[in-house]
């Protein structure tokens, strides 16, 4: 990879994209073998990887939306990268299709004989039924793809000199934020919360969003370092990774705040139908995953990120961002998998292959998009101000 200072293009991304595609194909092929061996296990693992990568794309989309709405200038140098990251959402929409064939393996509420003897599930049936589930989830991805594609198109038009797109992007983002909040919440309710259909938590959507945005910021930090190492150091500077690091710091705390708020009310109320969710994440070995999450998703990153050097020294940024992404996967593993295997902690090789498979496709598409158009939003009137930005 090489950054061209004149055209702001990222050159020679092809071989990297090709390697990612091969890794993805191998991962998916091995997962397919696994699907024939144990389809229930396959769908659990596939769902974990799917929500992991989808929430990263959603985090990227939020970064773009919030920049247009607030008009902040510090992150303009990273906006195109975030647009590319968000552009993985249409691909994740395609990756969702196999899951529709595994709904019987994943969702208790899709078992008609179970619903027949269950008053609560009968009451929830108008929302939790297979047809409506598939329709609305396709709709969510259509909405996100429409937002992502529209914003990126306007952004490219801005590069070509269209001054009117600034206002258009801002208007689209303002409406987009509202749509985003609704769709992300329902997406989290559908794919993650309804795995345990008797359980509910109104803050659950925010929890999933907070983890996704945190993961996206970690990924953007890694990509910022990659850009700096490949010749874009005059544009993406230590000041920008410093500000990304501040986001990482703030949203590490925020993730814990939301997760803590969810836990706290359930602990206080102490009602069995609510506490069962945390009981499943404490018994049969899950206790260690829960404690691991608290320690490495919050306490240690929070303390480490308080120091200035961690936000400015490339190797430290890579380390903390890598840890954050790993913990983001652990978080999704922790949300999804205690429902299965009689609530026992079980890590399968298919978790690795599905991660490799979807991850390879994700990275391939990201690299492809990054190489196709200028990697910096060069037409943005705030760009020079963003390049000159300094942190105090």
């Amino acid at each position: 990879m090489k950054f061209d200072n004149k055209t702001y293009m990222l050159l020679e991304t092809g071989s990297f994209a090709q390697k990612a595609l091969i890794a993805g194909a191998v991962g998916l092929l091995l997962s397919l073998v696994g699907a024939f061996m144990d389809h229930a296990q396959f769908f659990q693992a596939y769902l974990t990887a799917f929500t992991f990568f989808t929430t990263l794309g959603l985090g990227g989309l939020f970064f773009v939306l919030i920049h247009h709405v607030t008009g902040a200038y510090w992150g303009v140098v990273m906006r195109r990268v975030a647009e590319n990251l968000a552009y993985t959402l249409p691909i994740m929409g395609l990756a969702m299709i196999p899951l529709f064939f595994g709904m019987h393996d994943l969702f208790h509420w899709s078992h008609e004989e179970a619903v027949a003897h269950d008053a609560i599930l009968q009451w929830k049936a108008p929302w939790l039924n297979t047809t409506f589930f598939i329709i609305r989830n396709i709709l969510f991805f259509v909405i996100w793809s429409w937002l992502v594609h529209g914003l990126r198109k306007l952004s490219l038009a801005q590069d070509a000199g269209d001054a009117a797109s600034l206002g258009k992007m801002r208007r689209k983002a303002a409406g987009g934020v509202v749509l985003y909040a609704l769709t992300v919440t329902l997406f989290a309710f559908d794919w993650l919360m309804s795995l345990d259909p008797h359980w509910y938590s109104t803050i659950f959507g925010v929890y999933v969003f907070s983890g996704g945005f945190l993961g996206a910021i970690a990924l953007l930090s890694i990509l910022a370092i990659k850009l700096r190492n490949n010749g874009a150091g005059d544009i993406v500077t230590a000041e920008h990774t410093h500000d990304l690091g501040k986001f990482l710091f703030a949203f590490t705390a925020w993730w814990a705040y939301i997760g803590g708020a969810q836990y706290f009310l359930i602990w206080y109320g102490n009602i069995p139908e609510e506490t069962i969710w945390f009981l499943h994440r404490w018994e049969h070995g899950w206790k260690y995953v829960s404690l691991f999450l608290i320690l490495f998703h919050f306490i240690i990153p929070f303390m480490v990120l308080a120091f200035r050097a961690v936000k400015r020294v490339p190797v430290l940024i890579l380390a903390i961002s890598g840890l954050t992404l790993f913990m983001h996967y652990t978080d999704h593993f922790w949300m999804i998998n205690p429902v299965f295997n009689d609530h026992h902690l079980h890590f399968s090789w298919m978790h690795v292959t599905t991660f490799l498979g979807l991850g390879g496709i994700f990275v391939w598409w990201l690299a492809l998009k990054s190489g196709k158009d200028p990697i910096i939003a060069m037409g943005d009137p705030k760009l020079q101000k963003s390049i000159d930005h300094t942190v105090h």
Partner: protein
Amino acid sequence: MSQTLGALARFANPAELIEAAKKVRDAGYQKFDCHSPFPIHGMDDAMGLKRSPLGYIVGGMTLTGATVGMTLQYWIAAVEYPLVISGKPFFSWQAFIIVTFALFVLFGAFGAVLGMFHLNRLPRLHHPVFYSDKFAKVTDDAFYVSIEAEDEQFDDKKIQEFLSSIGGTDVELVAGE
């Protein structure tokens, strides 16, 4: 008795002020300051200021606050006046997180505000530069460098030559009591 308290020199614009600050810094002066009607980017580096230790003060205060918060509640609820509340253990740390977090933030805020005052040596009601009549323009459109007489290198005669040589105008010694 009137004595020399410092020296002042005026500069034309922010860019010249930054250049002047670099030269004063390189000449080895320690107790000098730059005055402008608005903040100037890059001035900290030009003056050779070290990073503020405020972050460490705040960090220490937050940890103190969290410790105080948790200990206080532990002592009240589990030691001094144990009450059974909704069937939970006396030391229900989950319930204590909120006050612990609140004191974490409160102590941190106190540390930030009071620490800032302390590091800036505030409150301070008077400063030698106010003896100068021309200096009042600094709140309007003037850019000044001031060097205090307490500085080890300070010399009544040399300081005026030095300030003129780096491009300062309206060079004056500030005298007062």
